[in-house]
């Protein structure tokens, strides 16, 4: 697809991560177009979060290459990757407990891709809080927030760096049905604003409504790729999720 190359935000080629003898990710190659929302799905333990950790620099790949807008970011470490413009949320929400909500958000916008400070930073962080629906919570302590609100704070913190690519690792996990709709609407909004996002998710109706394209992983390898409707109908994918030996 040569027309994609020009606007390719992120690409992975032959990405492999071995922990001892176990290949958590094996020879993964994929691209991510600008403004695209890519879903990364698969059963537990299939290596999705490992892929996220490889992209964000938390883990160093055993082999393979990751490029951000043509710039090789393989193995440069998480703080450098963040500085280049990749922001992430965590599978288990990570707050800065002794800091205020506003400071939690501001933390993302000082040292990474965007470097604001002082009044400008404060205003920007406040704007992001409003955007995720927490306009009045800036001065609160994070321990006083509900789970979904902590997730909102984490999302705002990721957005504070004006990321080129946003990685959401099971950002919707653990939400109740009402919160889930709020969460999906929030990501939908980011999508309509033109954010480039990779989502790791188990919530299938979120995948269907949010993702342009999906990659399905099983045991560390890519087993399918296509639109959500295509991959969720794929025989191999159904087998990976439900298994034929257990049936």
């Amino acid at each position, binding site marked *: 697809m040569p027309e994609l190359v020009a606007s390719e935000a992120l690409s992975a080629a032959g990405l492999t991560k071995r922990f001892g003898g176990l290949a958590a990710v094996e020879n993964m190659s994929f691209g991510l177009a600008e403004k695209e929302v890519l879903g990364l799905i698969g059963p537990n333990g299939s290596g999705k979060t490992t892929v996220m950790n490889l992209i*964000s620099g*938390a883990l160093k790949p055993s082999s393979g290459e990751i490029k951000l807008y043509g710039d090789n970011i393989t193995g440069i*470490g*998480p*703080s*450098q990757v*963040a*500085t280049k413009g990749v*922001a*992430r949320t*965590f599978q288990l929400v*990570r*707050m*800065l*407990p*002794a*800091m*205020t909500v*506003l*400071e939690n958000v*501001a*933390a*993302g916008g*000082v*040292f*990474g*891709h965007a470097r604001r*400070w*002082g*009044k400008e*930073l*404060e205003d920007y*962080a406040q704007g992001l809080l409003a955007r995720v629906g927490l306009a009045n919570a*800036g*001065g609160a*302590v994070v*321990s*006083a927030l509900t789970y979904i609100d902590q997730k909102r704070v984490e999302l705002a*913190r990721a957005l504070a*760096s004006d990321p080129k690519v946003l990685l959401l690792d099971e950002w919707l996990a653990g939400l109740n049905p009402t919160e889930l709709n709020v969460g999906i609407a929030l990501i939908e909004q980011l999508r309509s604003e033109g954010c480039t996002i990779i989502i790791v998710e188990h919530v299938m109706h979120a995948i269907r409504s949010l993702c342009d394209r999906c990659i399905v992983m099983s045991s560390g390898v890519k087993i399918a790729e296509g639109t959500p409707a295509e991959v969720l109908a794929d025989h191999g994918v159904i087998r990976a999720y439900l298994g034929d030996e257990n049936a």
Partner: protein
Amino acid sequence: MSIAEAAPVVRGGPAISAREWRMLLVSVLILLAAACVPLVVGGYALQVSISIVMYAAFATSWLLFSGPTNYIALCTAAFFGIGMYVTAAGVDLVPYPVLILASGVAGAILAAIVGLATLRVSGIYFVIFSLGLAELVRQCMTWGQHVFGTMSGLYVTVDRSEPMYYWQLLALTAVIFLVGWWIGRSRLGFALRIIGNDEVVAVHCGINTARAKVVLFIISSTFASIIGALVAPRWGYVEPVVAFNPFLSFQVVIMALLGGTHRLWGPLLGVIPFTLLWELISIEFPDQTTLLLGLCFLLIVYAIPNGFTGLIEDVWQRRKGGVAPGARNA
């Protein structure tokens, strides 16, 4: 133990708020009052006062690094000893003020080497290493003294009056406070608070955590070395066993914990009562000092984990009816 500078807004930027001006004014008044002490008291009271400002400088400079990062550094003695030795070695060769600077530089260099080697590993490994460092440097010095020297120590002869020691240490304490205040307002300070809260978040926010920690460690250790240079002439004779006494490192940590580590002025509240208590213990129970130091440590950690500043703030919050006590550190 956590840092909880729970200001409602992100601090920093060029503007200094009215509240900060008030704090600054109060600090200057306290400093002026403290500077008058040698004019009023002398003899034993002045000696104790010198101890108090010395420990205030130690504990506050220790806090610069260990407060925000939550890394307990037990190597104050190593840097203090280095400062003393640089001063003792050069006292007959170069003017004393140059030696004060040289001590700071020597401390900074040692801190940079140690920091680069150890601050990539976190938590308990650093604590143990920092404790071992003082001992390592002491052994090296003892060996050096044995090989190159003619006796077990060095004489330091600089003519200084007791009030002068007091004023020098007080001035240094003021500088440490100013530096601490500046760091608290800077990006570096913000980065360190993030690191102290969650290092994983910090790196994913783009913070070069190793560099931030090393810079702070250097600043903190440089001050400890300068204290060594300021105190060396008062001791008159410097030898490894006293210059690199690990006791000092623990005392400094205990004082800082007693005062509270989440405010810059916290250690001050610990230093004054603890120094007085320690004077009493040294006089009344000279053979049980180590035992009593350990007991004090346990008592503080169990009874007032957030130090005096933590207690004061909890009471303050309760009276205001604001945030529930303890919520700050949840």
